[in-house]
């Protein structure tokens, strides 16, 4: 049985069916990410503006150095490059140049893997970074010595740890003011001993740490899943799915186009995620 309207436009929609399908899907994706973006707005506006990170309920400023801006910026460029290669892959098929399509599609997959690699480095850095609140209310951030991942005060107490060695982060230059004093920053790099009895809360920079990291991991995690999903489809069309080029080139070109539309959407979401989470 032949599937109708894989290449010919349907008279009522004036489009081939896959294109209506992908746009309906993308419309639902707009609502999915829209729910998360509106949650972000509520959490951010609901945060007390008088508090300064690392206070627990504060909304951090990008100068607090929670996220790695260069890595985020490189990932933005990686996704932009992949968006161009996706559209060029489709153009190559339109121009009946399969070899060029093969190259462009391959570059897109490399970009997708590069994006995921950079993102996993970022995540790993967060999971070994800690936020500590002492019983007297002092809040600070830094690393445990030796390096540990996914630790919390509960786990440390369960393991009967009485004292931890903690390397404090250099004082955050909030409002771009405290960037100067190099000597103070040097002192900050020496590990200090903290008694677990003095610790009220110790936790890694995961989604449980604060509302900021909760929305950060939810949004970037969902976006990363989209990158992986998109990359799998692109990889399928790159080699196994490309056999269709010989039997039904027009339908194959449409598949590449539809897959490209999804990929552009993933890029589009990141265009907003990057400034909203990393910069503003």
């Amino acid at each position, binding site marked *: 049985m032949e599937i109708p309207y894989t290449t010919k436009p349907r008279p009522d929609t004036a489009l081939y069916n896959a294109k*209506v399908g992908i746009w309906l899907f993308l*419309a639902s994706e707009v609502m999915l990410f*829209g729910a998360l973006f509106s949650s972000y*707005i509520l959490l951010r506006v609901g945060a007390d503006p008088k508090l300064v990170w690392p206070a627990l309920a504060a909304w951090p400023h*990008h100068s607090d150095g929670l996220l790695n801006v260069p890595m985020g910026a490189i990932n*933005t460029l990686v996704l932009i490059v992949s968006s161009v290669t996706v559209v060029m892959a489709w153009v190559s098929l339109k121009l009946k140049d399969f070899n060029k399509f093969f190259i462009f599609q391959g570059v897109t997959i490399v970009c997708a893997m590069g994006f995921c690699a950079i993102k996993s480095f970022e995540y790993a850095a967060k999971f070994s970074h800690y936020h500590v609140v002492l019983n007297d209310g002092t809040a600070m951030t830094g690393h445990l010595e030796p390096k540990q991942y996914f630790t919390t005060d509960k786990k440390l107490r369960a393991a009967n740890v009485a004292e931890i060695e903690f390397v404090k982060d250099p004082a955050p230059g909030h409002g771009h003011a405290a960037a100067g004093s190099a000597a103070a920053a040097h002192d900050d790099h020496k590990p200090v001993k903290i008694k677990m009895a003095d610790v009220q809360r110790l936790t890694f920079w995961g989604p449980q740490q604060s509302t900021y990291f909760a929305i950060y991991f939810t949004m970037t995690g969902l976006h990363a899943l989209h990158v992986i999903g998109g990359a799998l489809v692109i990889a399928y069309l790159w080699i196994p799915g490309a056999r269709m080029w010989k039997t039904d080139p027009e339908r194959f070109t449409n598949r590449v186009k539809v897959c490209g539309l999804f990929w552009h959407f993933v890029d589009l979401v990141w265009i*907003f995620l*990057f400034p909203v989470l990393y910069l*503003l």
Partner: protein
Amino acid sequence: MAEHAHADHSVGHDHEAEHIKAHVKVYLLIFGMLILGTIVTVGISYVDFGAAWINITIGLIIASIKATLVAGWFMHLISEKRMVHAILIVAGFFFAVLVALCIWTMAPESLIGGGKKQHTTSVPVVHEPAAAPAH
């Protein structure tokens, strides 16, 4: 007759090829603009305009321009059929409703809540000296 039709067909294809080649230049131009937009976004976030909302507004305007370039040209929305526009208008409408609802809940004294102010004074949670034990 058949030959004539065939000739027309190939001319049509050449036209399409020319058309697409012209598009490639546009794609590369947009690529450059997106890279430039990213650099400007990062650069501007380090400039202190005196108020956070100015940075946020500028950042979101640049992001919206970049999104328009991607959706309009890479996704061919500017030359897409009415059906696609209709689907997106519906999605855009509900997205706007969603965001508007959020903004209303944040400003209860404006459109809903009828002047019932529910602002609580914020209590600093940390950076507080430990309270002296009560006698």
